[in-house]
């Protein structure tokens, strides 16, 4: 009985982490139709930069997290401005260049931070846990749920309730018309990409106290982000939020109930969903 409750709570906290991981991917893919395969690398880069700030330079955790997000945002902006912008609609070239950059980032991290894993201390104030009857919930994980919800809400407000959001949506729906009415679409795309990158970097450092930071983090995380976004339905933030929690539950209960199938717990449901509902659980009918 307790195990069930514990798994349920774990599912939600892991879901929160997954949303932080996948929000940026969902944003970029949903708005710009770019399958950003550097997403895992950005997550890892954010984790490494943040870890250095916190563990080596002893900056407060949240300042470290901000620096990590900013660094990755700038990196993302450069990629968009210098490379992706000339490849609009060229899906294959986008795949090639994003995978190429992933190779460079992974090797760069290995060069700078060596291969040794880094354990990032939980930010002070969020150490320890809450005891409930005989169950124990780590405070930091509960904080992750809150942060995920806040980020989700902010993104929703930004896209649905602000002028910038309206311009972005207009730029996505009909770039030519948006240009005619004086919206600088190219700058909007850069902003969206920077934001997506910043979210990835922020997710990286937020995940670091749980996942630790190590070479290979990028390739471990990218498929997870893809699973969430595909299952939730591409291009809808709500979809990836719900998708994150669904995957959280599938992952936790699957691993605990079917240990024999641990390797298949994530991808089997994904295949089933895609076969039955190609547009994902919450996506609209495929265009």
């Amino acid at each position, binding site marked *: 009985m307790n195990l069930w409750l514990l798994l349920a709570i774990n599912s939600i906290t892991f879901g929160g982490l997954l949303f932080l991981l996948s929000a940026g991917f969902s944003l970029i893919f949903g708005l710009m139709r770019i399958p950003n395969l550097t997403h895992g690398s950005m997550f890892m880069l954010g984790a490494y930069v943040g870890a250095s700030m916190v563990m080596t330079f002893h900056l407060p955790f949240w300042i470290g997290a901000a620096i990590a997000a900013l660094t990755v945002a700038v990196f993302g902006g450069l990629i968009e401005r210098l490379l992706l912008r000339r490849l609009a609609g060229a899906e294959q070239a986008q795949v090639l260049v994003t995978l190429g950059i992933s190779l460079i980032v992974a090797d760069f991290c290995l060069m700078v931070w060596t291969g040794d894993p880094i354990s990032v201390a939980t930010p002070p104030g969020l150490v320890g846990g809450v005891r409930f009857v005989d169950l124990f919930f780590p405070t930091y994980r509960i904080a992750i749920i809150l942060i995920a919800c806040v980020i989700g809400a902010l993104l929703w407000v930004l896209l649905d309730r602000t002028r910038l959001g309206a311009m972005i949506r207009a730029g996505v729906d009909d770039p030519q018309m948006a240009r005619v009415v004086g919206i600088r679409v190219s700058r909007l795309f850069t902003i969206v990409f920077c934001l997506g990158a910043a979210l990835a970097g922020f997710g990286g450092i937020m995940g670091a106290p749980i996942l630790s930071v190590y070479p290979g983090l990028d390739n471990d995380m990218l498929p997870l982000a893809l699973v969430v976004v595909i299952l939730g339905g591409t291009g809808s933030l709500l979809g990836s939020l719900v998708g994150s929690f669904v995957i959280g539950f599938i992952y936790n209960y699957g691993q*605990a109930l079917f240990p024999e199938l641990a390797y298949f717990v994530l991808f089997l449901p994904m295949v089933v969903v895609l076969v039955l509902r190609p547009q994902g659980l919450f996506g609209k009918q495929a265009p």
Partner: protein
Amino acid sequence: MRVNRRKFLAGTAAIAGAAAFPMPSIAQGAPLKIGLLTVKTGPLAAGGIQMEGGVVTFLKQRNYTIAGRKVDFISADTGGNPAGAKVKAQELIERDQVDLILGPLASFELLAISEYVAEHKIPMLSLAAAEDITQRKPNPYFVRASATSSQAMKPLADYAAKELKLKKVITIVEDFAFGYEQMGGFQQVFEDDGGRVLKKIWTPIVTPDYTPYLAQLSGVDAVIQGFAGSNPVKFMKQYADQGLKYPVLTGETGGDDAELKSFGDEAIGMISACPYTIDFDNETNKRFIADFEKQVGNWPGFYAAGLYVNCQVVEAALKATGGKTTDKTAFVKAMRAAHLTDTPRGPVRFDDKGNVIGNIFIRKIVKENGKLWQKTLKTYTNIGQFWPFDEKKFLAQPVYSRDYPPLKS
């Protein structure tokens, strides 16, 4: 006299062979070519960098001259996959014509090239832990100066049962051969000593979140983890975050000295068994640690120490053969006959299958001067791959697997 003559003939044949190729090599005085198969890129790079550091530290201490022969050192990056290991083994053997190979790192790399290397009669000194390569499917050109997967786990089990008086444990480790072999060895000895393994949990190689498994840990005296690579660091953090307080015991990869700088304080108190320990008190080890730190910037762990000891074995064999490596069989024989007294892990010798017999250290992670460090609790001496089991009986049982030994119900 006759033996000498035959050796002399073999030597001249080698010269003739070498002369057929456009290479300026003369058998006598030619440099000793040592090839290292390691991993310098990708997720396994940490261990690979340690391995290379161990070799380079040794060679620098000897000024790149072993037993009077100049050393040509070639380091090859396999990328950590079997196909890469095969290509790089070909590169070392066919292109560079090395005299011997150090490495590779991972068991699946070793298994991918073992037969190929044996066909070319190239001596190989690896620390990949796959049991059968020195047990049921021995390679006559193979020497392992580190340990088999379960070599350190058996003394650990003995210590857990007899000194720590543990009765019930759960094991948790990655779902692959190295994990099966580690926990198989632990279980066999622990249950012989009266303990019980309640459950064996296997986690996929890539497990971002261990909490579904951590939720199942209850009602035990201790938890035995056997993780490798970067997983121990992640596991220990999540273990502590879940408020779990059972003592944690582990093997050589789970408590590797190279990761002391990576672990957080949650690792304090973890007990591990390892064929090397950084607090081993002799001059050779102190010099090794100092020189290695200068070279690599981190402390050496058992990957680095394993390769350092491998180099010492090569040195001892070269001295025994008078610097000759042309007769590979004789050279491997000399390596297996090596009897070292002064290594960073204490005395080392080999069994007839090429596996090491030496110290296994039981240590505990402590905090000293603000840094994590190992403190040896007990040293098991003269531990071979068969523990005190009878070799024949041991080899008659199947290799440790997911289902062997079975859980007692």
